[in-house]
């Protein structure tokens, strides 16, 4: 029991040190380094459920993440999207893409940024064979965060496009 607790403590300490490492690289809030280290972080956690089955929606990623002030798709986001596109090609229903931003910057600018992100996902889907008329985009900017607080890990969770 004692041993277990110690182990858990070590795990937590390691995890926080890891998070702190991620956060500390982003020094000025616009640094590319900060965003890069976060994608490393998501990659390492995502690799645990890499073994998804394309026929099973439950195992597919429906949230695509972006770097700070960017609307271009990351390699990771493109991979997740490819799997979704493969699934969507077998269906005919409407696709709603909701763009979001982290809280840094003004609300109206973030609404525009969220729209850019949603459109960049929509464009990628359209290029890869999903008909435009099926796709609806809407931006919520920073109005609907999923994570709260002022750390890079919070911000990176909020910079996203959700497939509904």
């Amino acid at each position: 029991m004692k041993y277990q607790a110690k182990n858990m403590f070590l795990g937590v300490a390691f995890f926080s040190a890891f998070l702190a490492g991620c956060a500390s690289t982003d020094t000025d809030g616009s640094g590319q380094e900060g965003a890069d280290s976060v994608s490393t972080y998501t990659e390492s956690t995502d690799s645990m459920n890499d073994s998804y089955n394309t026929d099973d929606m439950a195992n597919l990623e429906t949230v695509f993440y972006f770097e700070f002030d960017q609307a271009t798709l990351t390699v990771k986001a493109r991979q997740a999207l490819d799997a979704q596109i493969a699934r969507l090609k077998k269906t005919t229903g409407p696709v709603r893409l909701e763009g979001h931003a982290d809280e840094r910057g003004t609300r109206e600018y973030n609404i525009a940024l969220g729209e850019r992100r949603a459109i960049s996902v929509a464009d990628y889907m359209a290029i890869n064979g999903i008909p435009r008329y099926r796709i609806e985009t809407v931006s919520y900017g920073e109005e609907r965060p999923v994570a709260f607080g002022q750390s890079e890990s919070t911000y990176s969770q909020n910079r996203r496009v959700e497939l509904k």
Partner: protein
Amino acid sequence: MLIRIITALIFLSVSSLSMAELTIQVNKGKDDPVPIAIVPFGWQSGLTVAEDIASIVESDLHRSGQFAPLSRSDMLGRPRNATEVYYRDWKSLGVDYVVVGTLSQEVTGTITANYELLDVNTQRVILTGKESVSIDKPRYLAHTVSDKIYEKLTNIRGAFRTQLLYVSAVREGGNRTRFRLLKSDIDGANESVLFDSREPIMAPTWSPDGQKIAYVSFESTRPAIYIQDLRTNARTQLTSFRGLNGAPAFSPDGAKMAMVLSKDGSPDIYVMDLASGDLQRVTNHFAIDTEPAWMPDGKSIVFTSDRGGKPQIYKVNVSSGSVERVTFEGDYNARARVLADGLGLVMVHRDSGNFHIAVMDLKRNRVEILTTTNLDESPSVAPNASMLLYATQYDGKGVLAAVSIDGGVRYRLPSRFGDVREPAWSPFLQ
């Protein structure tokens, strides 16, 4: 009986919570505020007034940062008119001005304040005033007295009878959030809910006559601009174009609405004629153009654009469409609001990675940072340009704060619950 008392207590605490979402704390004052004593007003026997008028006047003047009201416990007497004032007493307390007054009921259903402002150094009455209001508006009476005293001593029109709009977001279990559009007096009192929704509410703004407001609501699961009449509360949907429908701004004459639409591609500034519904595209650029604010002459609009790579403030002539860049200092300037005289603007300015509120002198092209906290946004200027409200974060929550246009005075209006943001200071409402 006991149950009834408990029920009454519960009701009281619930209603006071919902009524007072904002409370004022002055956290930084001016270095040399004018010492003034607001003596508790006397009253006609038999008259009951629900509010302490002198205390509201005191709070108004204190909040302006330009006055240091004397504490009541330090007062040596409680004169009710000039003839009862011993100037020597006040001089010994270091007070420059004294306000005395009485409340009476001259007409049923109304309340009247007779008051005098005295200059301790010259030993003269410099202002004699009489104001009457309906008995249920004692706070308005107090703010009127504050305005008159402020005007007399500063030569600036008082803005204590103005109001503010703001948005609150309260997280309720799960991922549900309750959004409310709220209106209150400028001191946070008399708060009322104008609209509430499970979907985001954004960008509240006033019509120049203060009788209507416009805002963005996502109630249809897409953004749309609404106009709401404050007298009838009737709402009309103004736009619901494909894409963004955002940042509404009434023109200075109230006849047009500037807005951001992305129906033709990237976000651009448009102007709609409110009578005809005719829409004019004012900017046309593949960058993000957003956050329009009218110049006082109604001929041009300042807006934010990242057409140069980073967000900066630009100005567009509404009829010719010609664009010029306004801000050059710093790599992030956004969401400008123009001062009433058109000589300056306030905006969000990033400095060393932190977002602050800054004021820019348009004649000298000088930028001055007014706030010291991070994540400061949504500046909104008082109609007399003495102060501005903005949104910031405190203790992990969105709060509203105010700062004087010279940066000398700051106070916070924390909310009792939820996050509050996007304050919009009304025009003069009289």
